[in-house]
């Protein structure tokens, strides 16, 4: 059986390259692959397109990737949170691009990529700025925006447990976009609290089958040095 367990952070991340589109799990303070994010920062990667629900908050999540100059573009639904100071500064200085995608569209576009679809017909955003320049298709007299699939080169995913095949379960609401991103990327790297023996996870309870996972790194449960600036 292929060994998907990475022994070091560098080992886990050796497939990421400058310019990649990186899907980064997490919502608010939950389910963020913080150790993998540290690793991306330390590797000095550049010009990444980062997909996340937000642009980071305080020094949580993708905010650190922005701070360290790894990011050329952010695709997210909530860029201007009160705590998104790092992003705001870079954006206003013209150092990072932004594509705003409503949260439900973001989830469906990534799911479409994972499911091998070209895109989906969405009934929302019609008449709004979001619809500008997009194709519209009519089904049974109702209009829909055609939204293309949003695949990643890499997904950085946070899960609770992995088994040797890379099967994953998630803790509480830390699930969020993680299972979708695991399916939507060409290469999926997972940070887990713990790994468990083969056969430990009940087949019916596995949320992400290991066929969607390329590498996992056991980090224990992450606690940031400070929550400062993350809550406003």
């Amino acid at each position, binding site marked *: 059986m292929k060994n998907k367990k990475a022994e070091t952070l560098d080992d886990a991340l050796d497939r990421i390259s400058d310019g990649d589109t990186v899907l980064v799990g997490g919502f608010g303070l939950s389910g963020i692959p913080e150790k993998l994010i540290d690793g991306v920062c330390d590797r000095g990667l550049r010009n990444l397109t980062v997909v996340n629900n937000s642009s980071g908050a305080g020094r949580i999540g993708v905010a650190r990737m922005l701070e360290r100059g790894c990011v050329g573009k952010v695709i997210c639904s909530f860029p201007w949170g009160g705590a998104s100071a790092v992003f705001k500064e870079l954006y206003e200085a013209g150092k990072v691009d932004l594509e705003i995608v*409503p949260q439900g569209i973001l989830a469906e576009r990534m799911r479409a990529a994972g499911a091998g679809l070209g895109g989906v017909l969405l009934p929302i955003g019609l008449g*709004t*700025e*979001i619809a500008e320049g997009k194709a519209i298709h009519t089904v049974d007299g109702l209009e829909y925006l055609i939204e293309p699939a949003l695949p990643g080169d890499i997904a950085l995913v946070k899960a609770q447990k992995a088994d040797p095949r890379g099967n994953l379960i998630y803790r*509480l609401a830390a699930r969020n*976009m993680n299972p979708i991103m695991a399916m939507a990327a060409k290469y999926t790297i997972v940070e887990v609290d713990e790994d468990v023996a083969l056969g430990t996870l009940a087949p019916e309870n596995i*949320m992400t089958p290991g066929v969607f996972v390329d590498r996992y790194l056991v980090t224990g449960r992450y606690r940031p040095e400070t929550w400062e600036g993350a809550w406003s």
Partner: protein
Amino acid sequence: MTQKSPLSREQIAKRVAAELQDDWLVNLGLGIPTLAVDYVPEGRDVIFHSENGIIGMGPKPGDADVDTDLMSAGKGPVTLIPGASFVHHADSFAVARGGRLDAAILGAYQVAANGDFANWRLPGKHVGGIGGAMDIAYGAQRVFITMSHTGKDGSPKLVETLTYPLTTRNCVTKVFTEIAVVAVTPDGFVLEETAPGYTPDDVVAVTGAPLIVPDEVGEIAA
């Protein structure tokens, strides 16, 4: 004549919470909507949906029980009711867009007489973002808006046509402000209730679109 008593944020939350019926599935936006969770009328089993994938959010935990893996879409720590469940984001928005939400309570910058509303972008400013509002407002069976009746400069927020960027078309059911409850109908805005001490004319004066005033207008039970 009674003194004019505009509702507090808590009183607006309480008034909109009175709309929530037994067995409803409800999504709450940030701000005043979040407060509504504390005012669900007794005896009504209302299930709260959080777009980050929680179905069955319970009240805020004590400080010792805060878990960063169990927080609402507004980053507030929450608990679970018995029978709660988790879904990923695509399924969570399937709940919303697929029509399972009996109601959503959201904030707004403006509401138009045709039910359009704006809540995501202030032109020229970098504040907030769209988040999940478009999907939720599209899919919910009823969209209840809580907001101040006018802006800080006194300009009406109930308007004929939006001047702020649209969130979702033709979706607002009712608006709850500090001075009135206003329904959105095929004929436009209809005044349903006023805050204590306010006359219908007081409300008409600060509403930026025709406001239909029925013969009977109740007082908000604040």
